[in-house]
């Protein structure tokens, strides 16, 4: 049920209660929303596909846990989840911001082309898989096979990274403060230059974090697997 409450600011705030409205009504309403609006989602109850395909500069607050594909294909505006999120958070995000205050499951920000995804807690396996330009900042740890085949963008991890980090990574840059269980094929540690400290400082600031960029290490592609070679057959 959509209720337009009295505006506290100049923009009206609409609340959708998923205890008595289907997800389809929520997404339909968000697709018809206009720039500047604020929306609140009550009782999300871990439902899937919440706030997907947003195409207007709006802010959406999801007050609770979200299921799979929350804020999928996000294009503009802000989605904030005050809870945990399931598989494929902000998959294929194009721009805008998605912020999760809890933990998220696997494949967070998978294939994201742009924008910023901030996860205050931990992220599961395959965080940033096939990322294509998105920036991801994780406050806690990330699971195995994160940044697998990551093509572009930046992944910042304030905790530890699981096994096979950055396997077959292309041009994405990975920053990890804690330990890395193991690096995947063709992923190596790279020197932290001034430009990297600068970009990391910017990403941490954008995510509202206070870590010192100097405490991080940088990882990226050795670029040894960019072309087929019989001599690489042991690497696969």
């Amino acid at each position: 049920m959509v209720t337009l409450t009295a505006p506290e600011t100049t923009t009206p705030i609409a609340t959708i209660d998923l205890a008595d409205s289907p997800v389809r009504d929520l997404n339909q309403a968000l697709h018809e929303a206009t720039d500047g609006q604020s929306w609140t989602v009550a009782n999300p109850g871990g439902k899937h596909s919440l706030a997907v395909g947003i195409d207007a500069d709006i802010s959406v607050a999801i007050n609770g846990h979200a299921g799979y594909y929350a804020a999928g294909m996000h294009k503009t505006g802000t989605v904030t989840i005050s809870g945990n999120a399931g598989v494929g958070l902000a998959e294929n995000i194009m721009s805008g911001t998605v912020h999760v205050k809890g933990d998220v499951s696997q494949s967070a920000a998978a294939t994201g082309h742009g924008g910023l995804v901030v996860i205050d807690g931990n992220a599961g396996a395959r965080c940033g898989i096939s990322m294509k330009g998105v920036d991801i900042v994780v406050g806690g740890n990330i699971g195995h096979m994160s940044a697998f085949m990551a093509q572009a963008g930046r992944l910042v991890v304030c905790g530890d990274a699981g096994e096979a980090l950055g396997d077959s990574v292309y041009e994405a840059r990975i920053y990890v403060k804690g330990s890395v269980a193991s690096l995947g094929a063709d992923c190596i540690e790279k020197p932290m230059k001034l430009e990297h400290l600068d970009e990391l400082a910017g990403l941490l600031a954008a995510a509202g974090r206070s870590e010192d960029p100097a405490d991080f290490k940088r990882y990226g592609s050795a670029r040894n697997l960019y072309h087929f070679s019989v001599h690489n057959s042991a690497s696969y």
Partner: protein
Amino acid sequence: MTTTSLPQDSVLPPAQHTEELGLRESATFDRATIADIQRAAATGVYDIRGWGAKRKVPHFDDLLFLGASMSRYPLEGYREKCDTDVVLGDRHASKPLHLQTPVTIAGMSFGALSANAKEALGRGASEVGTSTTTGDGGMTPEERGQSKHLVYQYLPSRYGMNPDDLRKADAIEIVLGQGAKPGGGGMLLGQKITERVAGMRTLPVGIDQRSASRHPDWTGPDDLEIKIGELREITDWKTPIYVKIGASRPYYDTALAVKAGADVVVVDGMQGGTAATQQVFIENVGIPTLAAIPQAVQALQELGMHRKVQLIVSGGIRTGADVAKAMALGADAVAIGTAALIALGDNDPRYASEYAALGSAAGFYDDFQDGRDPAGITTQDPELSSRLDPVAGGRRLANYLRVLTMEAQTIARACGKSHLHNLEPEDLVALTIEASAMARVPLAGTNWIPGAK
């Protein structure tokens, strides 16, 4: 395949001469096999090529139609109507596709194909009221502009995937696999990763692109159901959602796709083409189109979803007879890829000398991965691409699509059918025991179907 340091055909004795000499060629180690071994020994890498399976497998050629006679009335050719239109995706989508012919164009990427080739496919398909399909590399403005009905592929790589193009698509095809390589990901070698192709795919220019074979954010049929739900939510339940599978276990895959909520299931047999795959994969993984159709149809029928979830079949469709046979076995529509490229000019004998210079010949050329296609189709080279006039190519494709449709109508009328969809397995018999067992129609002249209960 590419010959390397091997003797060219011109220095080998002609086949007739070898027979006159009484030379005996091994069936096990034939000349192509010997060349494969020598090539592997010389290079240390497996052979990568385009096209689909080249081995001989039971196919539509092994089926015949039973025309009407005493017990069934034929329709008058050129006088009585035999409709060919098809609606795809009306199970859940509010805007299903309504095509004028059941022959659609299969997914082929810009990158694998030149921009002119993609435009020609769009022009030809639109002229006869059918659909084209994007590929592993995103939607180009040329393609969207020229295609009246455009199916947007949703692939593991998600190259170029974005919500704007998703909303512009007339249908979405979630690709789990293709017939040439069920279980394999995409491949595009460096020579075709030009600046434009690299930009669309967010890849460094000139690298050998090997795409993922698994989707990055879902695993298995239960996840797929949620993924389909997300795509429906993004597109406000307007856009039909197809699920494409490479034929390996089509009975189970079709049933699971239906259960996951697909509007349309696309089954691609092993003869279906590819732009670049290991030859060992193409020739040894997957099952023939003929074997796949009855399994997929059985799954749909058992779920009570035959004709409700439409079935599109591809892999080795060449003639209107093939179209009619696929539909008689239960398909709602077919898709063509290789045949469409041939209609545009692929393997045209007029480029004989250029094929020879590449170590191939017209009728044999399959090195689509090299990007040196003399016909200007499977290339990103501007000079070669310019050889294909998209308007003329589109006209040739439209001609070919019309012929396929009219040929299928000819057969349907002979069987007394007023719509291609009224063709049925009872209209068919098989010429071989293998085809009879796979297609589940009787061996001609008998009422025997091997394996039938």
